[in-house]
């Protein structure tokens, strides 16, 4: 379970995220939807502990992580998949996975064999440098790296950005699988169709504030979706 309470983020003097609060239960997916510049990335990075200008409470699976440095949050089950399929380009695929492997012990553990089952393509590339992979392959690797930490909570920042439709489908299928294992997912997307297909609820943000939270089924043709995303 992820609980965020009163998250505020500032870059120096400029206040970007205002009082973001949300709860994502085990096996639940919350989509965070908003236009470019609305504050989705900043919200996610604020939760990870990577931004010095973030304040507010972050609780993962009952553990209050407020004030913890990012690496400690990750080790205790909070995984972050940044936008742009970020990997370590000068490390091999295997190294990109090993570097994230610090089993937190309880229950279901991810390892490379499971990753190869999920993405057979990555196994055949395992000794290649990540920098030489295609965008889709790097996205698989970015998600796999997050999984290697055995997360309870995953924060994904536009994981389908720039991917071919068939890969968008496989990311959506993967998110559905993860959900069924009990992971809490917070999914920032501009691709609202895909996001609303896999999410249970959607939080709409505009200029750094949540303006509405709706069940996914009602969000699909809501007034707020049209107004905020201009669709």
């Amino acid at each position, binding site marked *: 379970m992820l609980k965020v309470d009163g998250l505020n983020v500032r870059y120096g003097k400029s206040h970007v995220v205002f009082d973001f609060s949300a709860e994502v239960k085990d096996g639940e997916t919350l989509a965070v939807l908003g236009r470019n510049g609305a504050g989705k990335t900043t919200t996610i990075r604020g939760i*990870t502990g*990577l931004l010095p200008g973030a304040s507010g409470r972050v609780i993962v699976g009952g553990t209050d992580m407020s004030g913890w*440095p*990012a*690496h*400690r949050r*990750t*080790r205790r089950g909070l995984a*972050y998949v*940044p936008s742009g399929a*970020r*990997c*370590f*380009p*000068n*490390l091999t695929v295997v*190294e990109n996975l*090993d*570097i*994230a492997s*610090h089993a937190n012990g309880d229950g279901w553990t991810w390892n490379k064999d499971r990753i190869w089952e999920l993405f057979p393509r990555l196994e055949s590339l395992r000794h290649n440098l990540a920098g030489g992979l295609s965008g889709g392959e790097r996205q698989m690797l970015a998600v796999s*790296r997050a999984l290697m*930490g055995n997360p309870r909570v995953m924060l994904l920042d536009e994981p389908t950005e720039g991917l071919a439709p068939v890969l968008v489908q496989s990311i959506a299928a993967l998110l559905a699988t993860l959900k069924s294992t009990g992971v809490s997912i917070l999914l920032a997307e501009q691709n609202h169709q895909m996001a609303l297909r896999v999410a249970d609820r959607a939080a709409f943000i505009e200029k750094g504030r949540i303006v509405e939270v709706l069940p996914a089924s009602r969000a699909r043709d809501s007034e707020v979706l049209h107004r905020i995303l201009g669709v």
Partner: protein
Amino acid sequence: MTPGQVLLFTVGGLSNAAYLFIVAAGLSLVFGALRVINMAHGSLYMIAAFVTVVIANQLGAGLGFWGGLLVAVAVAGAIGGVVEVLVLRRVYGREHLVQLLGTYAVSLVVAGGVRIVFGPNYRTVASPIPGHLDLAGYSYASYSLFMIAGAIVIGAGVWTMLYRTNLGRNIRAAVSDPDLLNATGVNVTRLYTTVFVIGAGLAGLGGSIVAPSQAVGSSIDTDVLVLAFAISVIGGLGSIVGSAVGALIVGMVISFGLVIPQTNPFALAFVFIIMTAVLIVRPRGLFGRPES
């Protein structure tokens, strides 16, 4: 030049390259991971050289030197750790100029401290491996050959650390994306301290190993720093292979430059002419990667 002389000056060049490589590798390792040019790198080298000389002369050349070397490397590493925590942590992510000034300030403090503690006189220490090898009419100090072998072992050790251990994998990851590394569960703050301590330890190792073959005085910090920079520029900052190749070039140029009468006055100038040429033709150095 006779073949015997060529061999003599080649070995001279290799022993120059040996200690210079150890020092430059530390500078390069720190720059690669932390993106900080450490102006105090030569200071750590100098401190280690003095510590080695003092301990070795107290305890007697044989065992005293090896004990001195261990203590000197530990002292250099420890001072490096303190400098990282107190100085560098405040300047990461700032402009290179701020970092240069910060570490330059440390080098001035050390230079002043060394002059107060050890005085202005040059000091020497007897070689811990006396004896020599006669070959083709010339005699080679056993210690020079030891230095060359030592540098090869240390180079292999650094390479193995970087490419065959988890620590090295994390260092390589920090070179490309420290932010992502943090979010992957690695304590990057602690990793930076570790890298800086290793870099400082290499500076110390260089200073300690060179002590029996050169006079140790309070200006060797800048002497070695200037050469280590030239090596890093030629080989490419951040690349261990580049440090080795750069050290070989600089070591050989100095050795041959000094013995040929016509080039003797310009031997050091040649190093910087080559450095300038590399900067013009290939600004990132022979083995460096462009800064992203």
